[in-house]
């Protein structure tokens, strides 16, 4: 058998994966195994494939993804903690033909920004809210989040979340699905290739619904936090499947009538 050289492999017909042109070349700051990078990549691919780059305005949160604007090559606004949906509301109302999304973590969306989340969904603002739920405050070092599971340990619930003292984890997707303003509410994940493909389809649907001005689209991505959970990436995905998915089941919660 003849020796195979690297240059023989690098051919268009052998191309299995290509970085989206909407992703920048900046090295991401996320920890190894974190779901944020994958979620960014999927979003960038949709922006590229749907030809949205020239009319997209993204709103970043405060949390691990605060620097998201370094990685996706679209116009960005960096909001104060929890306020991204308020910024997005104004952007969309003032420029209705732009594709507007917020990208928020659980502390941002479900704790400090609860009022903005609920009321933006209730007004049915034509935006996409991408909600990354990993049940912990990652950036500040692993504190308890509103979505931290019962009994789950964090730096501010070192003996495990005691729901009698700290309340129960909050299911934001189920809450916003009750509001008439939301048109599409779904819960996805990025821990498997199949999950990644489903998330991409969900974001594409959200683009379509936003183009048709059908109301707020809310996509929750149940994700992991290897550093905050103090696990290896593989362990964290396993733990997520065994513990997060039963409480935050994946799938569509609300879909618009055809």
């Amino acid at each position, binding site marked *: 058998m003849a020796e195979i050289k690297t240059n023989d492999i690098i051919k268009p017909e052998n191309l299995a994966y290509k970085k989206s042109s909407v992703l920048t070349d900046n090295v991401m700051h996320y920890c190894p195994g974190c779901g944020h990078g994958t979620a960014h990549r999927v979003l960038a691919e949709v922006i590229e494939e749907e030809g949205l780059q020239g009319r997209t305005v993204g709103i970043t949160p405060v949390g691990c993804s605060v620097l998201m604007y370094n990685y996706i090559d679209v116009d960005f606004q960096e909001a104060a903690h929890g306020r991204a949906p*308020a*910024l997005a509301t104004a952007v969309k109302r003032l420029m209705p033909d732009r594709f507007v999304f917020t990208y928020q973590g659980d502390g941002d969306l479900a704790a400090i920004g609860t009022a903005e989340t609920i009321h933006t969904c209730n007004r049915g603002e034509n935006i996409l809210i991408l909600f990354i739920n990993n049940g912990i405050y990652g950036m500040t070092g692993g504190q308890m989040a509103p979505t931290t599971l019962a009994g789950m340990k964090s730096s501010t619930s070192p003996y495990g979340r005691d729901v009698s003292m700290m309340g129960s984890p909050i299911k934001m997707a189920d809450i916003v699905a009750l509001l008439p303003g939301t048109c599409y509410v779904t819960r996805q994940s990025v821990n498997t290739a199949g999950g990644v493909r489903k998330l991409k389809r969900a974001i594409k649907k959200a683009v379509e619904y936003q183009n048709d001005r059908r109301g707020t689209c809310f996509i929750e991505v149940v994700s992991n936090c290897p550093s905050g959970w103090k696990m290896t990436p593989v362990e964290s995905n396993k733990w997520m499947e065994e513990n997060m998915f039963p409480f935050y089941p994946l799938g569509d919660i609300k879909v618009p009538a055809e």
Partner: protein
Amino acid sequence: MEKELRLMKGNEAIAEAAIRAGADGYFGYPITPQSEILEYLMEANPQETTGMVVLQAESEVAAINMVYGGAACGKKVMTSSSSPGISLKQEGITYIAGAELPCLIVNVVRGGPGLGTIQPAQSDYFQATKGGGHGDYHLLVLAPSSVQEMADFVELAFDLAFKYRNPSMILSDGAIGQMMEKVWLKPQKKRSEELLPWATTGKPATRERNIITSLDLDPERQEKFNQKLIAKYREMEEKEVRFEEFMTEDAEYLFVAYGTSARICQKALQLARNEGIKAGLLRPITLYPFPKKRLAELADRVRGMLSVEMSAGQMVEDVMLSVNGKTRVSHYGRMGGMIPTPEEVLENMKLFIKG
């Protein structure tokens, strides 16, 4: 809409002037004594005429962050509130200042602290002129003393905000917001369709992406940014100081007062002159930048300055800094929604003169 003479409340004048100035958006939350601004705009429904967006937000916090989002698109956007609501907006205001965005914030001041009262006061001077939120920044602050100025300062505040890419504030009070006066309204201006080069309007292939943020984790760069802000404030101090003088040519004693207090002092000044007291009045129109230089000049000529404010004495500190010990400075004020009479102000000027 042509130039027009109307009888209006100060709050209504602000709302109408905003439509006519070609504002793109107003985001507000009801609070006394300024709810007429939101009510007027909702009734006028400019979305149908000029295309101006008017939205009642779920809170003052959401409203100022809507302003942040709109301003980041380079749009002419504003909010209004009264003291407790303005406290809530401070988070958004410091982000807007930190992201160097233009916008207009109106504060129709009521007495405080806390829930305080719904009656007029001038007790938010510190908050308005010294930053208000966290970090080193300033708003450009205009203080109207008539319904006419409530209307006129809307366009001026927007122009200055865009000139310096800095938030402007109209610092009014419950008296000027609620009282009715004649007001000349300007003709309708068209809203601008221009996409500003720095704004987040969607990235065309011809430019790099625009990022609106107040975050920089590198301390050396952040300090350079702070220095850039300071340079901007110095330029405002050079070019944008506005004030009005009454009978200062031969004045021996000077009232320093803005807004409602300045109107009361104008009357007190007449009463003083009738009694042979050579009083004058300096009315700062911009509270930031403050007319420091002019007060320093006048300090060489007068025997004393009395700062009259509906507060415990806030602007008086800027008067003292301006004159830097060259003349006597004191304060007279009422608080909690009480408005001093001209006679009362004159009596206190006489006490001040006695020493």
